[in-house]
Structure formats: structure tokens, C-alpha cells
């Protein structure tokens, strides 16, 4: 299997504080990789390094085939990113958002137009083409944001707490979209605070105090920690944390 | 009262911990004083001029006539005594006085040497010096003309005297302007931003849900800014006294009184802005456009109000800084007393109450 992400000894220090402490792992093409950890465990910092927007203090790695230290500009062009906090411009229409992000990733106008039609049809959003994004229900926004994040067919897409606060039914529809993308070969790297969602991942890593303390499939982790659910696994690990919380 | 102090205290913490802003606040007056201290020349028009001519004759009426016809001058007429002239100049009605020596023509013909004094009101030194330059040119021109028609050679001596600003420092003009600008920026922009920040960050929601009343809360927020304004005022006065050598000619107490009224006025304006907007960026934009820009353009800080088009002159009457700057010039530079600035003080006090009224009307006790 092809590796779309390989990192070893990745470290980030802020002064005396080691936010990310020698993490090593790899992610296979088409995999759904859950990246879990308590608040303050270092997830966000690690993600920033993987997306090429923060320079590691030590360690090396490749993302989408590019070196995270020397080729971070190329990484940015070959990944997708979506977070709960920001993903779409609320005061732009649905199609304007799609065109904007297509344009940012250098797609040709004609291709953008074709893909937009196909996308809106697939999402059953055709009548919302001219709606301002702020008037869409949250669940729809999130679906659209995800579609926009993979619009340029990146090798890997980073999802930072994509489903926070969403209706349970919508949350599941969202995960079905994630599965579809994975089936098309897009690797999904996702963080979440919903432990049931951790179960939907192929493999899960759990960060504690800047280190990765566990990494395996949810079933194997449950077995290893003799736990009934991922929630329990997480709690057992996070309890050992020494940092703030 | 305890709540009030706690609130003002908290506001002090916000300011003190924001090093960059603190540096800007305290550095701004210093930089501006030094920048504006050495000013730029500007076109001057409508110089109000009067003539004192104890013994009218052909020469003096000839010169007076030329001044009257000059487009840069507005001829107010003749004065009949030096006292009248001085009185008129103190009131600010008169900017330039042309004072002829007694028996001007006789002196010019017989010893061939006549003297004329040009007295300028130089609390606005640009205007003053330019007015003198124009008048000198006119007199010299007249002299050349007379020589041209074959009269015997004679000489006209022009003596220039600056009143109120004998050293003719341009910084005299800018110190009041800088005071007006700096106080406006701190009181209006900083105050409105600090209130709106609480709305934007969501802390306002918690404050609203507490028993603290809106009035005391808003008032407590202004305390630190009032304090900083007074520090700035002192910095400006010290800098202008020791670095630019601008003395305070009038009563220091009166100057401080005028400044405190202006501080209250600009704080009220900051509060008014804060009730109208919900985002910090909007607070900055609204304050900058409605407060800072008028100070720069319409207050007389850079462009003399007198030389503005009539429409802008009318518009400038609603700019608080215009009244403040005028009052400070009178007190600080011309050394006038309260009698001469009561109008400015009254206007600023009225504006303060007006803005406070609007603020109280607009202050919400709920979120919408």
C-alpha cells in the first residue's frame, strides 16, 4: 500500500515547552485516520506542521509525497483542509464559494463550472446554488464545506473537528461522505471529540502530553486496553496526562 | 462603589498588559509634537487687515488703497487709536495692522525716510508671517511706482512686529492641535473599542447577566482613559514647554479646565460610538472617520478655519476639536482670560451633555 504520510520524530517546541514530542506514524492511501487527544495535548500544533504552515523544531516527514520542511508550499497545494471554525465564506453564495476555492487551487474556469454542476447535483443542492452560505442549515454547510475541501481532488484531506454541534442524523450523513471520499482514494485525517466517531476510523492515534501513546484500529485498541468502548480507552490514556488537562 | 473600583481596576489591567497599545498611546503625543513641531507653509487668504493712520496724506491713502484692493486681504477699515487696534487684535478680529508714522509723506519727502509698522497677530504664525510678507511687497511696490514717476528718492522703512508670538514659532500653532488630536484618539477611539471588545468577546453577555447596572459600568470603563488622557496632556505641555519652548501665557488652571471639559466631551463621544456598533473594527472605522478626520481637516489644526470655504466653516462648528483648539490657542498662546473663551467652553459643555443624552438613550439593558 502507498503511504501518503510518513513522519518520524516530529517535534515542536515553543521556548521551554514541548508542544509536540517526537511523534512518528504513517498513513496509508485511502485510510480514515483518527487523530485524537485531550484539549492541549498538541493535536493542533501537529496538524499545523503536517499541513505545511508550521515549521517543525526537529524530525522529518512527507505528506502527499512532499517533504514537510523543504516543500511545504507543494504540500499546501495537494491537501484539502476543513475546520468547524472556518471553512466557507458566509457572505458568498454557494457557487461563489466553490468557484473561489477551485480558483485558489488553480483549477481552470471551465473545469470548475463542470465540477460545480456535478457537485450540486450529487448533493441535491441545485436549488441552493445562489443562496448565501450563511442561510444554509449547519449540517448543509458542513457537507458543502467538505465537498469544497476535496473539490481539487487532493491526496489527503485534513478535517479539524468537522462535526461539532451537528444534529446526530446529519453527523452520520457527513461520515458517509467521508467514506465515499475514502473509497475514491482520498485519505482522510480527522480530529473529533465524539468518541463514537473514533470507531468509524480505520486507525486511531491518541495524543497525550505531546506524544502519541496509542495507535491502532479501534477494535485492537479496545482489546489492548480491555475497554468496552473507545470512550473508555481515551479516558484511561488521558488520565495519565500530566499537563494542565 | 466596590464594584465600580473593581471595574476601573480591571480596565487598567487590560491597558497595562497590552504593551503595544500602551506604547502607542504614550508615544503618540511625543512623535506628533516632534513631527508637527516644525511645520509646513500653507497658502493663506482673507487676511483681516486694518490701517492706523494718524495723519492721512497722499502716500498713506495710496498704500492703504492698494492693500484694500489686494485679493489676499480683507480690509476692515481704519482704526483711530493704538488702543482700538490692540483691542481688536486681542479679540481675534484683526490679524494685521498697518501703522503709519505721523506726517508720513513729509518725512518721506524731507529727510527721505518714512516708517511704517506692520503688526501681526502671530498666534497662528504661518498666517502672520505670510500676511507681513504680502504687505511688505505692496509697500515696496508703491515705493517703486513713486520713484518711477520722477519724484525725489525716498525710503520707506517697514518695521515688523509679532504680537502674541514674538519668536514666530510655527510650533505654537500645532501644540493646541496636537492636544486636540491626541485626546480625541485616546478618549474616543480607545474607549469605544474597549466597550465594543466586550461585546465581541462575549464578556458583555456575562456583565449584562450580573446585577451591575449599565450606567456605572460604562462610566467605570472611561476612568482609566481619562487618567491616561491627563498623563498625555501633561506630557504634551511639558514637551512643548521644554522642547519647543512654547510657554503657557495664560492661566494654567484655565487651560486644564478647558482640557478636562474636552476630555469629557471626547469620552462621551466614544461612548456614543460604542452604543452604535458591535464590532471592534467598526468602532475604529466609525471613530476614525467621524472623530479623527474632522480634527485633522476641519478643526483649524492644519488648515485655518478662516481660510476654508463657507460650507466647511459651517461644518466645522460641529467639530469639538475646533472649539477646543481655538480656546487653547487663546489661553495658552495669547494669554487671554476666561472672558475670551466662555463661548468655546459653553459649546463644548453643551456637546458633552448632548452626547451623554444620546448614549443613555441608546444603552441597552439586554442583548438586543
Amino acid at each position, binding site marked *: 500500500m502507498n503511504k501518503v504520510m510518513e513522519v518520524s520524530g516530529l517535534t515542536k517546541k515553543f521556548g521551554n515547552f514541548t508542544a509536540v514530542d517526537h511523534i512518528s506514524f504513517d498513513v496509508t492511501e485511502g485510510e480514515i485516520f483518527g487523530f485524537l487527544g485531550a484539549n492541549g495535548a498538541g493535536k493542533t500544533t501537529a496538524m499545523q506542521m503536517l499541513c505545511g504552515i508550521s515549521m517543525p523544531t526537529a524530525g522529518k516527514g512527507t505528506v502527499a509525497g512532499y517533504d514537510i520542511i523543504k516543500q511545504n508550499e507543494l504540500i499546501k497545494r495537494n491537501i484539502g483542509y476543513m475546520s468547524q471554525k472556518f471553512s466557507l465564506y458566509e457572505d458568498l453564495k454557494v457557487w461563489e464559494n466553490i468557484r473561489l476555492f477551485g480558483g485558489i487551487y488553480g483549477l481552470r474556469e471551465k473545469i470548475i463550472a463542470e465540477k460545480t454542476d456535478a457537485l450540486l447535483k450529487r448533493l441535491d443542492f441545485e436549488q441552493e446554488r445562489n443562496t448565501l452560505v450563511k442561510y444554509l442549515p449547519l*449540517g448543509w454547510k458542513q457537507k458543502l464545506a467538505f465537498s469544497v475541501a476535496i473539490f481539487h481532488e487532493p491526496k489527503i484531506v485534513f478535517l479539524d473537528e468537522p462535526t461539532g454541534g451537528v*444534529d*446526530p442524523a446529519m453527523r452520520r450523513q457527513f461520515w458517509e461522505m467521508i467514506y465515499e471520499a475514502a473509497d475514491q482514494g482520498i485519505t482522510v485525517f480527522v480530529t473529533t471529540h465524539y468518541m463514537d466517531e473514533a470507531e468509524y476510523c480505520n486507525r486511531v492515534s491518541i495524543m497525550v502530553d505531546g506524544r502519541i501513546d496509542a495507535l491502532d484500529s479501534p477494535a485492537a485498541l479496545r482489546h489492548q486496553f480491555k475497554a468496552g468502548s473507545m470512550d473508555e480507552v*481515551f479516558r484511561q490514556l488521558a488520565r495519565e496526562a500530566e499537563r494542565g488537562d | 462603589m466596590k*464594584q465600580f473600583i473593581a471595574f476601573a481596576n480591571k480596565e487598567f489591567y487590560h491597558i497595562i498588559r497590552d504593551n503595544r497599545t500602551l506604547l502607542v498611546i504614550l508615544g503618540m503625543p511625543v512623535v506628533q509634537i516632534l513631527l508637527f513641531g516644525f511645520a509646513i507653509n500653507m497658502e493663506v487668504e482673507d487676511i483681516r487687515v486694518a490701517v492706523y493712520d494718524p495723519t492721512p496724506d497722499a502716500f498713506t491713502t495710496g498704500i492703504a488703497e492698494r492693500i484694500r484692493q489686494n485679493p489676499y486681504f480683507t480690509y476692515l477699515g481704519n482704526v483711530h487709536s493704538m488702543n482700538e487696534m490692540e483691542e481688536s487684535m486681542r479679540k481675534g478680529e484683526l490679524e494685521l495692522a498697518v501703522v503709519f508714522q505721523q506726517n508720513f509723506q513729509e518725512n518721506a519727502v524731507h529727510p527721505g525716510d518714512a516708517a511704517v509698522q506692520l503688526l501681526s497677530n502671530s498666534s497662528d504664525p504661518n498666517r502672520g508671517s505670510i500676511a507681513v510678507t504680502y504687505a511688505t511687497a505692496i509697500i515696496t511696490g508703491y515705493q517703486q511706482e513713486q520713484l518711477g514717476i520722477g519724484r525725489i528718492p525716498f525710503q520707506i522703512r517697514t518695521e515688523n512686529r509679532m504680537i502674541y508670538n514674538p519668536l514666530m514659532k510655527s510650533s505654537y500653532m500645532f501644540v493646541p492641535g496636537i492636544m486636540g488630536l491626541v485626546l480625541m484618539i485616546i478618549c474616543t477611539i480607545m474607549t469605544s473599542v474597549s466597550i465594543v471588545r466586550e461585546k465581541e468577546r462575549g464578556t458583555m453577555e*456575562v456583565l449584562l447577566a450580573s446585577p451591575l447596572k449599565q450606567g456605572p459600568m460604562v462610566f467605570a470603563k472611561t476612568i482609566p482613559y481619562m487618567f491616561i488622557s491627563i498623563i498625555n496632556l501633561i506630557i504634551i505641555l511639558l514637551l512643548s514647554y521644554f522642547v519647543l519652548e512654547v510657554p503657557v501665557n495664560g492661566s494654567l488652571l484655565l487651560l486644564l479646565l478647558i482640557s478636562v471639559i474636552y476630555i469629557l466631551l471626547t469620552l462621551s463621544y466614544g461612548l456614543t460610538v460604542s452604543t452604535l456598533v458591535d464590532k471592534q473594527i467598526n468602532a475604529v472605522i466609525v471613530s476614525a472617520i467621524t472623530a479623527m478626520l474632522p480634527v485633522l481637516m476641519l478643526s483649524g489644526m492644519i488648515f485655518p478655519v478662516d481660510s476654508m470655504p463657507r460650507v466647511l466653516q459651517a461644518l466645522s462648528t460641529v467639530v469639538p476639536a475646533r472649539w477646543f483648539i481655538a480656546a487653547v490657542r487663546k489661553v495658552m498662546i495669547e494669554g487671554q482670560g476666561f472672558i475670551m473663551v466662555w463661548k468655546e467652553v459653553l459649546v463644548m459643555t453643551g456637546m458633552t451633555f448632548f452626547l451623554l443624552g444620546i448614549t443613555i438613550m441608546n444603552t441597552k439593558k439586554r442583548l438586543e
Partner: protein
Amino acid sequence: MIEVNKLCKSYGKQGKINALNGISFTVDEGEIFGVIGPVGAGKSSLFRIMASLLLPDSGTAIMNGHDAAKDYRKVRQIIGYMPERFSLYQDLSVEENLTFFATLFNTSIEENYHLIKDIYQQIEPFKKRRAGALSGGMKQKLALSCALIHKPEILILDEPTTGVDPVSRKEFWDMLGRLKEQGIIILVSTAYMDEASRCDRIALMREGEFIATDTPRGIIENYREILWSVEGTRMSALLTALRGYPEVKTSFAFGDKHHITVDESFQPDALRHFLADKGFHDVRVELAEPTVEDCFMAM
């Protein structure tokens, strides 16, 4: 107690957006009442009206005998309110924040220390640290301490656990349990369905309406569907296969299993055969206990 009667609230031009559509409920002394629903259901509007921060278009909210609209001053003295975002002063230290809020309510940290002791002790080692430098869980604890410091009769917590990790969330609910024992009425909203079981009573909220109000157990007992769980490998493909089975009414992922609701004629063995034909062997099909989340989705 809290008595809410037919609250209505709408926003926008000509009241286009209905935030609340005639909400009524009561909460008794010493009860934790949970309002559970997704973002945009109207939870924040409801809580803001009860905290006297918004006026309802119609209806009343009576907080321990005081009308939130008319007696807003009184209401503000007896409630502790924690808005959706932890509203702390980021540039003030932990201790300064707490002192400030104590003074705001005319009290001091010492006076009511016993009330916050449990929670505050966990962040006390960091009391000189600025609130902005705290992690999500610690900010949440500080915000709760600030909302509690004046010994409120009613605590209103708007999504206190959003964006907080599962461990901190569990601790937080443990703290609420202890506060309840002090007789404080606790009103809390959340988008996490799994937190429902920590409440005495819950209301499931959707699009400005309470679609059900009961104890968590009562909600689950009222579940009318027949629920089975299906577990196996290749879960994504399995879900698609389940949707193709005629007796399956709904099917959705549920943690490491899939939950399906079925017709009364459903026979698990028939499903096992159906799945085996499609290549899914070693599939476990078992009767499942419904959860609040199942109930929410069925409504």
C-alpha cells in the same frame, strides 16, 4: 423553581427565523434539566431569555418567582450564567478573573469558597496564569467558578462542554452532580447526546420546539421502534448492504456497530443469510438497547 410558559421568539425581517416556537416546561429545586439538540435548534435563544438578556415576543419565564422580562434586576441577582463561549478576560489571570466576578456580585472569593472549592482547586495551581493561556478544559472550569462565585439559586449553562475533550467533559458533569446536591437548579444545554443520561430530566429540542420532555429513562421507554445492532467488518459496505434489505426501515452507524430499525416481521436469521450471500460472514446481529440518540433520530 423555573416556570416557562409558551415562549416565542423570532428574528430577522418580518420574524422570518423562528428561534422559539411556544416552549413550555418547569424545573424543580435541585434538578439538572438538560436541553439537548443540535446547533441552531434555539437553545441559546431560550437560555438568553431566561437569563433576562433577551425579551421574548410572547410568553413568560419565571425564575424562582421573578419574571425574567419584568424583574430582570432581581433575576440577574439570583442566576449564574455561562454563555456559549467561555466569556473570560483572556488578559487577566485566573485569580483576577474570579476576584472581578466576585466583586461584580458584591461578594468575595472567601465568602463562597466552599461552593467552588471542588472545581477551583483543580485550577488553583495556575491562578497566576492568564486565562488566555489555559486549555479548553481549564477555561471551562474557571468559567464555571466565575458563574458560581455569588452562590446563584439557578445556574444556566449554555453548551458548557462544546469543544471540550471527553475526559474534561466527564469531570464537568461530575461537578454539576455535586452542585445539584447543594440545592442549585441547573439548566444546561448540549449537543452531545451521550450527556443526556447525566441529567434528571431532558428536553430534546429541534427547530425551536421541544419534541420530547421527560427523564432520560422515560424518553427511552417511549421509544416505539424495534432496534437491532449489526456488527461486522467492512462497516461502510455493510451499511449499504443493510439499506438494501426490505425490512430495514432506517440504518445508521453507531460507534463500532450499526443500528437498524426494522418492521415487526423482521427475522435476524434471514438478515444473516442475506448478508452472507453478499459476502459478509461473521456478522453479529443482536437486539439493541436504544439510547437517547436513537430516540432523537426517530423523532
